C-alpha cells in the first residue's frame, strides 16, 4: 500500500544580528551586514538610535557609493528568528523608514532597523 506523507514543515526563519546602541538593543537583517569591524574615522553614528556609550564597533554595509560603517556599542550575535515572531510596526507608533518592524524576543519587542535608511 502506498501512503503519501506530507513533507515535514520547514519553519521559515530569518537571521537577525542584534546590536546595542547605548542601553537599547536593535536588530538588523544579517544579510545586509558585510562584516563587523572596529569603527574607523569614517564611521557614523545615527542620533535617532540613541546615545552611544563608546561606539567602538561598526556594522559595515554596502551602499551605492561603496561601503558605509554604522557605529554601535556592542554586538550580541546572530539569532535565527521564526517568521511568526516578526511584527509590523504598529500604525499608531511611527512611520519612520528607519524602523522596518519588530520581532518579539519572548514578549519583548526588538526594533528592526534598515541599515541603508541610516544614511
Amino acid at each position, binding site marked *: 500500500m502506498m501512503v503519501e506523507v506530507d513533507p515535514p514543515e520547514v519553519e521559515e526563519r530569518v537571521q537577525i544580528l542584534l546590536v546595542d546602541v547605548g542601553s*537599547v538593543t536593535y536588530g538588523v537583517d544579517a544579510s545586509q551586514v558585510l562584516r563587523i569591524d572596529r569603527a574607523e574615522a569614517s564611521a557614523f553614528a545615527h542620533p535617532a*538610535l540613541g546615545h552611544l556609550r563608546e561606539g567602538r564597533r561598526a556594522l559595515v554595509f554596502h551602499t551605492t557609493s561603496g561601503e558605509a560603517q554604522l557605529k554601535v556599542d556592542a554586538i550580541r550575535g546572530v539569532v535565527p528568528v521564526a517568521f511568526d515572531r516578526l511584527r509590523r*510596526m*504598529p500604525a*499608531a507608533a511611527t512611520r519612520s523608514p528607519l524602523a522596518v518592524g519588530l520581532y518579539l524576543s519572548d514578549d*519583548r*519587542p526588538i526594533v528592526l532597523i534598515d541599515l541603508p535608511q541610516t544614511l
Partner: protein
Amino acid sequence: MEPTPLQRALRSAPERTHAGQARPEQEFFCFRLGELRLGIPSQSVLEVFRAGSLTPLPRTPAFVLGVTGHRGQVLPVLDLLRFLGKGESKVGARTRFFVGSSGSFVTAVVADSVIGLRRILTSDILPPPLGGDASAEHMLGVFQPGARGEALALLDFGRLLQLARKRAVVR
C-alpha cells in the same frame, strides 16, 4: 359618566417610562496619572496589565514612550502627560498600562494607578473649562463628585488617539 381620578390619571400617563432616557449615564474607566484624575469611556478600554519591558523607537514624538509586547501583540505606549503637556510619566514597577482602542488603532496607555469603573450621569458632566489650556480640546468634560471629591477630567479618547497617531506618523 364622570371619569374617576384614576381613569383621568391613566389617560395622561405615558405608555412607558422615560426615566432611563431622562437620566442617561455613561461608564468611564478612571485612573490617576501624575496629579491628574482622568476618565475615558469604558468601551474604549480592552484590558489593564502591569507595565512590562518598554522598547524605545527611533524618530517618535516624546509622548510615544516606545513599544511593549503583550499577548504576542506589539503595542505603542502613550504617555498622556506628555501628550497633554502636563509633565512626564515615570514608568516603574507599580505602573499599569491599559489597552485602549479607537477604530483599528490599539495602543497601551500609561496609568500610575487605576481607580476603577464609574457610571456618570451625562447631565452631571460639566463642559471643559473655557479659556483652559490646550488639553481642553481633548476633553469631553469634567465631573465633580460632590464638594470634597476630586474632579475627574473626562477625555475624548477616540479623538485623542487619532490626533496622537497623526502626530506620531507625520515626522
